[in-house]
């Protein structure tokens, strides 16, 4: 076996290990969520723990990629934003988990500050990737960014009015934050999908695919939450909330796997490819 084949085998080994860890986490989470084998407190603690753990894995994996790029390399700037956004989500998940354990209902507050700010950083990462790919002239890039932000603000405002109208709640910070999430998921998810398609079949698509999957899962969660279906499902032991929560955890793990695979490729080269003479 030549050196390249050995490197690839090592990379594949680590990928399989990561896949096994992710599968164990999903399985354990699903068992705890559906079968509730322990006391209420322990079940709640463990399900919160696994969500925070999955978010932490994604942030650590993104940090590894950022670390692997040298100072001054253009992809490092993309990963700087991507990594910071994932750390903010991890902090948000941690605060939310704590509040979920100690309060009866988690109000709009600190976790949302981190979640919302993370969307802005994901936007920055997407923007940097776009600039790096297409090298548009700066004026045109700024114009596009301005229109995208304008569109984003308009859709958020429209959604806020819509939610306020259908739920009968007054138009306040709460509604605005709740309206922001689906628009953010939709915008970031679409941009991630667009980038993943540009990089199709390429390793650089993995992280963007992860982000897209996460946004879709979050969109599902937000829709269930806002429509009241989530709390109804929880109180009636319906599987809808389980699907939403397990998908949410899986989405974090997909982001983590996407980032970790990119790190493996940076270390061991393209790991999913065989040399012509390899068995």
């Amino acid at each position: 076996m030549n050196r390249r084949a050995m490197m690839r085998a090592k990379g594949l080994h680590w990928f399989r290990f990561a896949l096994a860890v992710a599968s164990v986490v999903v399985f354990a989470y699903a068992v705890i969520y559906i079968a509730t084998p322990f006391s209420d407190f322990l079940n709640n603690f463990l399900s919160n723990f696994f969500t925070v753990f999955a978010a932490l894995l994604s942030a650590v994996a993104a940090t590894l990629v950022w670390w692997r790029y040298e100072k001054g390399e253009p992809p490092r700037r993309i990963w700087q934003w991507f990594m910071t956004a994932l750390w903010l989500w991890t902090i948000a998940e941690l605060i939310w988990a704590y509040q979920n354990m100690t309060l009866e209902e988690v109000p709009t507050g600190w976790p949302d500050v981190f979640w919302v700010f993370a969307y802005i950083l994901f936007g920055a990462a997407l923007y940097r990737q776009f600039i790096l790919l297409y090298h548009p002239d700066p004026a045109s890039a700024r114009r596009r960014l301005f229109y995208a932000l304008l569109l984003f603000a308009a859709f958020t405002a429209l959604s806020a009015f819509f939610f306020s109208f259908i739920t009968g709640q007054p138009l306040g910070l709460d509604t605005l934050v709740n309206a922001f999430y689906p628009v953010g998921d939709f915008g970031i998810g679409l941009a991630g999908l667009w980038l993943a398609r540009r990089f199709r079949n390429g390793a650089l698509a993995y992280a963007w695919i992860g982000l897209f999957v996460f946004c879709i899962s979050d969109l599902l969660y937000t829709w269930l939450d806002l429509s009241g279906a989530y709390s109804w499902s929880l109180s009636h032991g319906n599987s809808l909330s389980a699907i939403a929560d397990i998908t949410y955890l899986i989405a974090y793990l997909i982001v983590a796997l996407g980032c970790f695979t990119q790190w493996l490729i940076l270390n061991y080269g393209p790991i999913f490819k065989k040399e012509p003479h390899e068995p």
Partner: protein
Amino acid sequence: MFDLFSSLSVRNKEVANSYLQTLLKIQERELFTGVLHVQNGEKSQAVMFFREGVLFAFYTLVGRQWLSVSRQDWNHELTQTEGNVRVLALPVEGLRIFRLFLELERNEEHTFISINADKIPAKIADWEQSDSPSLVHVRQGETQAFFVILGGPSLPLESLLIGSERFQSGSAVLTQIKSWGNRACYVTRLPTNLESVGGNEYVLRVAFSSLAQRTLERYQELAGRFLVTHLNDAINYLNEQNRQSMYFLGTNVNHREFFMDSEQAGRVYKILLEKMYEEMSLVVGSEIAGRIFEDALASTSPRLRRQLETYVLAGIPFPIKLEVKP
């Protein structure tokens, strides 16, 4: 008339054919790289090119022109060759430059001037700005320098300096010449269209190196240095397997291979570009890998692009838009 070999100050030895055969064996044993020139008075002249002891090119002077002898006729030619032998060790880069000088028709127009050494870099820069390619030979005492000027902005200048005991190549040659100060030098400029077999191959090599370098630079910008190193490893491994003396390091191409003609070179370059595309596709996807090549090709000078389109890119199995179809 410019005569390359009469100006060379290398050791001479009158040999009979039987000794020539022994001499060839010695070169083989000593892994000699360079040229062996045999002159039988005014009757005949022959030049043999060696790389690591292997004879790989044979030229004879027919009339006023050096012609390549086909491989199947080498044995016959070797039994006929005898005379005054000059042996000149050269690096591969030197062999390539030497072949260009050799293939020039000896009755072509040329400019001969005598100027101070420190004025030569400016003179060369002037000639680089003109659109017509040329070969330049500089002589100062026992030392000689050779330059290949492709003509046109941002095209590389290749140079070789042969001193009494050492060679130099690259930008160090002009620096060395400048350091001679106001010593008088004889400078011969030989205009050429570089359309000989060697000339064509030379332009193709420059074109390939330029395309590969631009491609690697853009790939590095998108994917980072580590993945460029992985691509280099893949290419270097392939070259090693195919016994090609080419080495990719970062975004640079160290090309030490000597190809007999553009067709042979084109086949090798095509394989390398396909491999680069395959490796890049695994990282940035096939669409962007194709675009990287297209952008690199678009930023290559039209002359080099035509050469690539004729010998390398036609029929390449990945999407790349061509301007000129052969």
